[in-house]
């Protein structure tokens, strides 16, 4: 099993076959994390570097655990401890790491396009762990894995993605992948948080939460990225919440079997009510579990995916 791409920079351009290979492989890796000894020797002797220029707990930890469960040596370099503070630029940092022969570079960066830039300077595969407002492909893949698990299949499903669409790389990665798999996407939020001409990505646009969730199979709630707003996108958080918070009251308008996903971290009570978040339709924690499996699958596939015994 291999992929047709060398790097995972985004879901844009990933073929249906590649996505299905990743999800199938992730399904088969998931069991490893339930064993008492949660480790297989698959990537023994391989080096994975997590290069995070932006704060992250969940994603970095997930990559680290994924690498370690495959027996890779995982090194974490964060923006605060790296040479970024000394003025060494991104490319110099990457070249220096490249000189130490890593097998995979996992990159998170606040600038859209930063991982793509790095591919010109390093030889090993790069996994984009989130770049600016561009893409966050592993998040979309773990979302899809979770949805597929619960719904059985993906083609034809209707999805509402709700919230700060403009600043969301998760949203963009999901749109590309979902389109490729034949799902229908509606993006929902105030017009100030919906980027121009997004309908050209093949999605519908709605400003009304209640209407847009009426007939969908999946509701994806996005975090309001408070740190990325300037003062003009929002009136008040109170009004945002009044209009776009997924409450149990609003959820009554949705289908009984609707799934609720959220990439985390959650602003409790702002975009999603606590009871909904912890309620039966929420699969937020399943997403986190599947995140490890998806990242294990990607590391495995990018490094050749040989059919050796996973036991």
């Amino acid at each position, binding site marked *: 099993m291999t992929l047709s791409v060398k790097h995972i920079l985004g879901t844009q351009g990933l073929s249906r076959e590649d996505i299905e290979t990743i999800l199938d492989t992730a399904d088969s890796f998931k069991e490893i994390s339930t064993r008492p000894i949660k480790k297989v020797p698959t990537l023994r002797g391989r080096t994975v570097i997590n290069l995070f220029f932006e704060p992250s707990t969940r994603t970095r930890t997930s990559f680290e655990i994924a690498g370690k469960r495959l027996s890779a040596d995982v090194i974490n370099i964060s923006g605060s401890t790296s040479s970024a503070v000394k003025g060494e*630029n*991104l490319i110099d940092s990457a070249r220096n790491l490249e000189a130490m022969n890593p097998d995979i570079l996992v990159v998170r960066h606040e600038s859209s396009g930063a991982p793509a*830039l790095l591919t010109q300077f390093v030889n090993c595969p790069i996994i984009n762990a989130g770049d600016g407002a561009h893409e966050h492909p592993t998040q979309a893949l773990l979302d899809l894995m979770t949805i597929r698990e619960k719904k059985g299949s993906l083609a034809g499903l209707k999805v509402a993605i709700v919230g700060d669409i403009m600043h969301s790389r998760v949203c*963009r990665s999901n749109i590309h992948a979902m389109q490729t798999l034949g799902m229908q996407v509606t993006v929902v939020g105030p017009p100030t948080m919906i980027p*121009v001409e997004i309908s050209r990505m093949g999605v519908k646009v709605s400003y009304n939460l209640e209407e847009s969730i009426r007939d969908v199979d999946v509701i994806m709630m996005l975090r309001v990225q408070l740190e990325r707003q300037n003062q003009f996108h929002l009136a008040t958080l109170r009004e945002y919440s009044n209009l776009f918070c997924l409450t149990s009251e609003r959820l009554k308008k949705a289908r009984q079997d609707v799934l609720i996903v959220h990439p985390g971290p959650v602003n409790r009570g702002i975009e999603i009510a606590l009871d909904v978040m912890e309620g039966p339709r929420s699969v937020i924690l399943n997403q986190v579990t599947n995140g490890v499996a998806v990242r294990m699958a990607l590391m495995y596939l990018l490094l050749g995916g040989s059919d050796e015994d996973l036991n």
Partner: protein
Amino acid sequence: MKTLIKNGRLIDPANNRDGLYDILIEKKKVLAVEEKGKLSETEENASEVIDAEGLVVAPGFIDMHVHFREPGFEYKETIETGCQSAAAGGFTSVAVMPNTDPVNDSRSVTEYMLRQAKAKGVVNVYAIGAITQGLKGERLSEMGDLKEAGVVAYSDDGRPVMNNELMRRAFEYSKMFGLPCIQHSEMLDLTEGGCMNEGHVSTELGLKGMPTEAEDIMVYRDIALLTKTGGRLHVAHISSGGAVELVRLAKAKGLPVTCEVAPHHFALTDEAVRGYDTNTKMSPPLRTQTDIDAIKEGLRDDTIDIIATDHAPHDVADKQVEFNHACFGIVGLETALPLTLGLVEEKVLTLAKAVEKLTSKPAQLFQLDRGALGVGDVADIVLFDPNAEYSIDVKKFKSRSKNSPFDGWKVKGKVMRTLVSGKTVYSASSD
């Protein structure tokens, strides 16, 4: 000592000439122009004979918008290297923008630039003085003193004059000196943090957009101010279809408004930004096909008066970074001719019209004693082969910087020789 240029197709819009003519040059000036073979003086009397068979002979190109980075940023470009780049691109005159360090907002900086140009530059260099002191947008510069030192226009290019009253006063004040204000039209509060055109491409790439309205609003504001104040407005690097329409309306009303377009704004759309090549990042940004169509219409009906490159050299270190951190701008002098000839190929402009927008028209707008090849005119001349095909290779650029999105492009139209005051300053054969 006389130089004869024979057998070429002379295109001299200022004198309404387009045909086979021979030109005789003596003492830096055009001594005679006659139909091919009819010059009374023969080759034996000329110390240098240039056979221009198959070539177009035109007044040397004039670029009213270049950044030569000296003083202050000599690692990107100097007046010397910038002039070499100009000569290689067929330009015999350039006007340098004042966003240097120190800013050209005073007589001493203007004099320094012109002195450097005289000592080291192979083409004519004109200076553009700042509208406001230090380009800060707070107080008017000493426009009178700047004019005496030699500037031909005022501009804060690189940034706009945002303050409405200050811009009103700039039009009024500059009127006293008879020189135009060149505006970099961009409402900064609409483009803050932006690094490409706002549209579906910026949405997909997750890059902050710069909407065309940022340009349109300022062009409209300036036209509105100028209607009352008088003075002259020249809109730099027009890029949005809306702004072209505004200039068209202003001209129809008889207002003294002119504008220029840079070749990249009719040669590339924002689709080129996919892949995050920082050589596709400039301000104003690459726009859409709709804007390009409007620009071509504007060129066709002369709403857009001239072509200017906005030659903006940047070192690799300024460009080989994250897209949102990269400097704005590309070098343009050495790609302007083939890109402009693309307009001729597409029948947007006739060859004569394209030459006019690179020569006599800018000379006329900025009152330069250049851009024509009548008897007695300064012998600034370009010879180019409009049919020569080749691939653009940035490594061969004379400019100190190589930041161009056109590297590897297969193009048509090659500068073969450039003469300034009758002297060859660039020759493709010895390149």
